[in-house]
């Protein structure tokens, strides 16, 4: 065994890279190991078809912590976010609803469906923005621990309680509703028109195995209002060069501080001696030694795969075994030779944001019902973006990329997850057929199609059960319970083994908070 690193980070996704960058910045000797030949994990850009650079998995950036952008000087390392400004919901045989940055224009569009909704819309945004500010303080700090008798923890709980109380009864009440209600029930307190409610409600179900009517889905609505790009609240962004651009900038930042990054280096297992991690074994059998191992993989892969159940006590293993992953979404990427045309819409302005195939609440709920019983939705919810419109560098001139996030595609098919490969193209057909109902002629424009099922996300990207957030963002798996009760502070039951992926607090999305907070906790622990 050769050199002994201060830390080995397993997985070169954005969280792993951010964690590595912070550790390197603090002067530690860090090595990042990525299984694939390409960095970025689920935030990678890949040339799947000549001249077309796809954001294969994750495709929009919304909650990336501004402090990371600043502290790691990511702009200098090439990260650039282009705002997605519109939200378009096409309908069959109708121009549908497009929401614009200009409030007056949105108002006119909404009032076509409901005058009352148009009136309430700004009021709703304001209320949500207020809520989001509160949620931010939770995302930007380690999860509070309600079981601890430590005065510091108690003080923090009191502070949080006080912050909540200061907002007054209405804010407390609204918080309670957000945390417990279904997205639909919550939105129905404000709105009446289906075509407005449906595309708003879907943000509550992204990446979950729940429907828009399932209780507990409302709070994810906040995520939409938490997105900050350069300080501007609630804008969603697309990364120049694809989402791989985010990861590459993080990698460059890490390298600028001296971190070493290896791709094509699959970690087979974590070496543990006497309850203490001391390095990793690579797929070829090479052993690498480190004082600390930090895994950015999901909890199941980390604890039951790389480390092994025998190193943990029974109750911890039970907790990880019942940790809910069950991926529910897939991805379909298209290379096309022209832009899709939607009924009653001219020009391209309405295509420069996200396009939601979510024509109604019942439509979305039916899509979920199909998934509940183990099949993909024949008429799924699709979130479409055309990144080549914002960033022409990703496709040849005049040609475009259509990137589609699709829900539901449940990992657990009724006939078994292993049957996904034979259903992959049928799933792709369902998605293309669905979109084609809104833009006829789509099929003829397709040059290349790439379909990612949850099975592929697991096999290729190492996401257990294809869960894009490394575990459901449900109340029982958030905060001090992510990934398991008592183990939310990035530390694990194995000494010198830490975690920094989306499967830790606050988890999910291209946020970077897990990597950042894990690095801070590790440095503060004095173990490194």
């Amino acid at each position: 065994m050769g050199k002994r690193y201060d830390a080995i980070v397993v997985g070169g996704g954005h969280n792993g890279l951010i964690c590595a960058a912070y550790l390197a910045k603090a002067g530690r000797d860090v090595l990042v190991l990525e299984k694939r030949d390409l960095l970025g994990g689920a935030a990678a850009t890949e040339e799947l078809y000549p001249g077309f650079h796809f954001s294969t998995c994750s495709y929009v950036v919304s909650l990336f912590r501004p402090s990371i952008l600043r502290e790691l000087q990511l702009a200098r390392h090439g990260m650039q976010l282009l705002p997605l400004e519109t939200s378009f919901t096409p309908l069959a045989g109708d121009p549908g609803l497009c929401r614009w940055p200009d409030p007056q224009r949105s108002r006119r569009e909404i009032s076509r469906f409901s005058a009352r909704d148009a009136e309430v819309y700004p009021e709703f945004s304001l209320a949500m923005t207020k809520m989001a500010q509160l949620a931010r303080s939770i995302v930007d700090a380690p999860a509070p621990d309600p079981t601890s008798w430590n005065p510091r923890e108690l003080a923090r709980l009191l502070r949080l309680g006080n912050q909540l109380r200061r907002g007054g009864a209405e804010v407390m009440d609204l918080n309670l509703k957000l945390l417990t209600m279904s997205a639909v029930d919550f939105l129905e307190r404000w709105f009446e028109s289906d075509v407005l409610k449906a595309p708003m409600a879907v943000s509550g179900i992204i990446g979950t195995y729940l429907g828009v009517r399932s209780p507990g889905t409302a709070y994810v609505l906040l995520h939409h209002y938490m997105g900050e790009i350069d300080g501007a609240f609630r804008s969603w962004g697309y990364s120049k060069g694809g989402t791989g651009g985010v990861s590459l900038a993080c990698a460059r930042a890490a390298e600028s501080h001296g971190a070493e990054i290896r791709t094509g280096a699959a970690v087979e297992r974590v070496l543990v001696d006497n309850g203490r991690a001391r390095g990793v074994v690579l797929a070829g059998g090479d052993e690498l030694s480190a004082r600390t191992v930090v895994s950015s993989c999901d909890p199941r892969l980390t604890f039951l795969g790389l480390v092994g159940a025998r190193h943990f006590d029974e109750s911890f293993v039970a907790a990880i075994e019942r940790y809910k992953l069950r991926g529910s979404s897939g991805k379909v990427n298209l290379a096309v030779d022209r832009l899709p045309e939607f009924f009653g819409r001219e020009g391209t302005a309405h295509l420069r944001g996200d396009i939601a195939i979510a024509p109604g609440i019942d439509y979305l709920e039916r899509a979920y019902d199909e998934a509940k019983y183990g099949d993909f939705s024949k008429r799924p919810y699709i979130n479409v973006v055309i990144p080549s419109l914002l960033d022409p560098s990703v496709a040849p001139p005049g040609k475009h990329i259509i990137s589609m996030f699709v829900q539901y595609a449940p990992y657990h098919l009724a006939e078994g997850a292993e049957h996904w490969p034979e259903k992959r193209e049928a799933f792709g057909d369902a998605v293309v057929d669905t979109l084609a109902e809104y833009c006829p002629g789509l099929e003829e424009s397709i040059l290349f199609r790439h379909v990612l099922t949850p099975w592929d996300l697991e096999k290729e990207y190492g996401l257990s059960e294809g869960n894009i957030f490394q575990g459901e963002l449900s109340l029982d798996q958030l905060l001090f319970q992510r990934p398991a009760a008592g183990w939310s502070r990035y530390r694990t039951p194995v000494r010198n083994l830490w975690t920094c992926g989306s499967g830790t607090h606050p988890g999910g999305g291209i946020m970077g908070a897990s990597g950042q907070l894990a690095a801070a906790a590790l440095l503060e622990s004095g173990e490194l």
Partner: protein
Amino acid sequence: MSDFDVIVIGGGTNGLTAAAYAAKRGRRTLLLERRDVLGGLAAGEEFHPEHRTDGVLHDTAGVRAWVARELNLERHGLVRRAEEPPVLLPATNGPGLELWRDPARTAAELAATSPTDGAAYGRHREFLARAAPVLSRFTDHAPPDLHAPGLGDLLQLGRSALGLRLLGKREMMELLRVVPLSLDDWLGEQFETPLLEAGLAAPALHHTYSGPRSPHGAASLLFAECTAGAPVAGGPRALVRALEAAARARGVEVRAGAAVERLLGESGRITGVRLRGGEEITAGAVAASCDPKHLFLDLVPAAMMPRNFERAATAYRARGTAAKVHLALAAYPDLPCRPGAQPAAIRIGEDLETLEHAFDAVKYRRFSERPILDVRVPTLESPDLAPEGHHVFSVLVHYVPYDLEGGWTDAQRENLLHRVLARLRLYLPGIQDAILGHELLTPVDLETRYGVTGGHLHHGEQALDQRLVRPFLGCARYATPFPGLYLCGSGAHPGGGLTCVPGALAAREICR
């Protein structure tokens, strides 16, 4: 000078409880019931010549011992049964399962098919028993005031937090983990017998507008199971009789057939009621046990209603999902899965997937092909409800929408009844020949007859948000924004079912 100190609107179990408490505190109290019989959803009714039910809601296990004690209900004839009779979960391919609260007896039932589930059920009941004191601290006390928390509220919150913490780190974490889970997840972690899972899940899902896969189902189960005790001998009818006797003994004036048309208001204050027919009665306080939507949207003078509050009342969710079927039977039909048995309670819903499918239907404003049935046979305990040898089946049918697509036509009613009978025939093949008469109450019928908005039998969905702040902000502690007006029914904390708690806690608030 007002005619009365307190007028209670509604003579259901909560109205009667509130009235009895108010009178006990020396208030001159008048109780008004719109119908000719007292009891509301717990009233027994004749639905076929000489055949009576003992109430729309038929589970009395939630009636709290402390209310019975404080109102001396035993002296007024209330008897608690020593133990709850088991529920039969029938099967077509075996003996089915007799579900007892007692873990040993349930384990004995499971011994042949799944000894591990027998043991798991024991652990399940132990967990419920440990969680019970923490949860009943919440359900059996007035909720803390969010608006202006006083010292008392802070103390109560502190005690709740302490109770939770004193469970110990592991147990506390487990409770916090479990509460938001779906029943499918939680029960799936514990058991392997589909019939057992369905039998435990079904009662927790009723009145929640959710299915086994919906998050927070575990919370409903915890609340229901942790606060359940021994049922009342003689059922809801006996409970109503005892409450009425207790109220009258303390001097409550009871008027049945007196429908409140609207409330009287004067400079922002509620001063009394106006009855249909024009009679006006004044009082220092009006306590309404009707549902909050009916109260705020129909009875409070529209001119007094602040817009925000009206919006909150409109947004309060009360989508009824249950129908009721009453059957008059010439004899107790045979149960091939348990020859010779005559269970007092039968629950039909084979597994969680059947429950989930049944819930799916209601989301699209239809009723299920295979409804979930909760059957009680009150004539076993109270033979006087029917002629000798005859029986009454009192069946709660889930899930049935209030706003049925196309409306509740005769054909649709026929269709629903047909499906219910088909489900019963599956397990009781001889039932068809025994039927002498029937009654079907759709959610719309329940609304019309009992005045419950949306046909919702718990006066509003028992979703987590409507459980923690019930019914909604501004009236979650029995008092309302209208001085002199209080809530005291199932729409108030801690919610629906036959418990008598909202009535008791509201009366304390009124008599402060």
